[in-house]
């Protein structure tokens, strides 16, 4: 195989690995929310157990990319593509960690009835997972237009986050005995909001990849 073809092949393989990693992380986030809503402790435990696979995949992908950089000395778009791959992989690994955190909160909450802002948290979750999926699709297709929409959705997530936290504080004032669940759900809110921010990061990375310039879409 010609050197350039081998590079293309290995680059493609790193990108496939990134898709697998991202799918696993987004699925974990999805599963952790389902476990929370259904009070499903077994499901929550599965999310925690599976995180080691996500972490391992991210390490493998890092090694693969570092080797490719060392062997091929890529420049310009090729180099950016590799750097973006490891940065996005690191973000997706973090999303997997948030799923684990949500699973742990699920176990702590146990069979208590969930407080009303859970509807807003569910909506945040829908938006965050859809943004992450769209981010990965945009990145793979290198579709800048698709990436722009993600920043719009992030504003909606931020608004929901503000509303949910305000409602949770109201609960803590009215029902002090629910303080512990208020804290746990506030953390879940935070994890969802951060996950959505990572989707925006992916959009920024895509801009960097395509245009070679840095943009801040989180402002």
């Amino acid at each position: 195989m010609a050197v350039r073809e081998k590079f293309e092949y290995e680059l493609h393989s790193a990108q496939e690995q990134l898709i697998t990693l991202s799918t696993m992380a987004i699925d974990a986030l999805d599963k952790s929310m389902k476990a929370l809503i259904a009070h499903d402790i077994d499901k929550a435990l599965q999310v925690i157990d599976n995180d080691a696979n996500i972490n391992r995949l991210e390490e493998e992908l890092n090694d693969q990319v570092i080797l490719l950089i060392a062997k091929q000395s890529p420049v310009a778009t090729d180099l950016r593509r590799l750097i973006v791959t490891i940065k996005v992989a690191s973000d997706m690994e973090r999303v997997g960690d948030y799923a684990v955190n949500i699973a742990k909160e699920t176990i702590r909450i146990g069979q208590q009835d969930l407080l009303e802002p859970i509807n807003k948290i569910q909506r945040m979750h829908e938006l965050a997972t859809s943004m992450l999926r769209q981010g990965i699709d945009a990145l793979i297709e290198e579709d800048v237009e698709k990436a722009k929409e993600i920043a719009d959705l992030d504003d909606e997530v931020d608004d929901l986050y503000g509303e949910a936290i305000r409602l949770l504080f109201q609960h803590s004032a009215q029902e002090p005995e629910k303080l512990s669940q208020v804290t746990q759900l506030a953390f879940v809110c935070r994890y969802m909001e951060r996950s959505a921010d990572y989707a925006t990061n992916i959009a920024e990375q895509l801009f960097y990849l395509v245009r070679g310039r840095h943009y801040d879409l989180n402002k």
Partner: protein
Amino acid sequence: MNTATIKTKIDTAQPATSVEQAEKESVYSTRQLNLWYGNNHALKNIDLEIGENEVTAIIGPSGCGKSTYLKTLNRMVELVPSVKTSGEIHYRGRNIFDSSYGVEELRTRVGMVFQKPNPFPKSIYDNIAYGPRIHGIKNKKILDEIVEKSLRGAAIWDEVKDRLNENAYGISGGQQQRICIARTLAIEPDVILMDEPTSALDPISTLKIEELVQELKEQYSIIIVTHNMQQAARISDKTAFFLNGEVIEYDRTDTIFSNPADKRTEDYISGRFG
């Protein structure tokens, strides 16, 4: 925030890399240079400004005209009988093609180092003293000073100071190449042209020459033709990409290797052709 706002934010954002350094004075201004070897149109409408105290790298696939361009800068290309040129090359404000411009005068100001080390079959000392002697310097003390200064300038003094009377053929290729650089420095040039100066050297000697180029640019303007992309990226301030006798892109080296404007440049530096 709506999509239009995002778009504005994206399109107006100033990336960190847009900070341009102040342009340095040009030592060479090439204007609409064309060159033919017989019927072969080897250089086409070249416009290039070469900055003072900078390293300018010229890259491009074999046969793209980069060595021809380099040899035009000291009019060495005129040694080829069928050569014809049009356009202008101004060195320090004077057109080097003017009939009043003496080629010897030009070559005293513009030194050249070649791909293969080419010391004279003489002692190390005589290699360095050759140029100054031609220019009429006979005083031994002055010649000694020039030899030491030039060898120090080429970062090889410590390696050869105890064997100055030995034949220059007896040292390694990397050392020979630095002797050739010292020989160039001995006539105190303004510009040094380097035609693939490390392509015949091992990695350690290459590194030494690259470090030397970095030091020399403090005092000289250097134009280097290289096939080694990483070398161009490491040591040059500006890079010109030549293809089929044309300058496709000329920009700061950081830009050429991180975000080139022309797809052909990107394809070449990424190894898609050449």
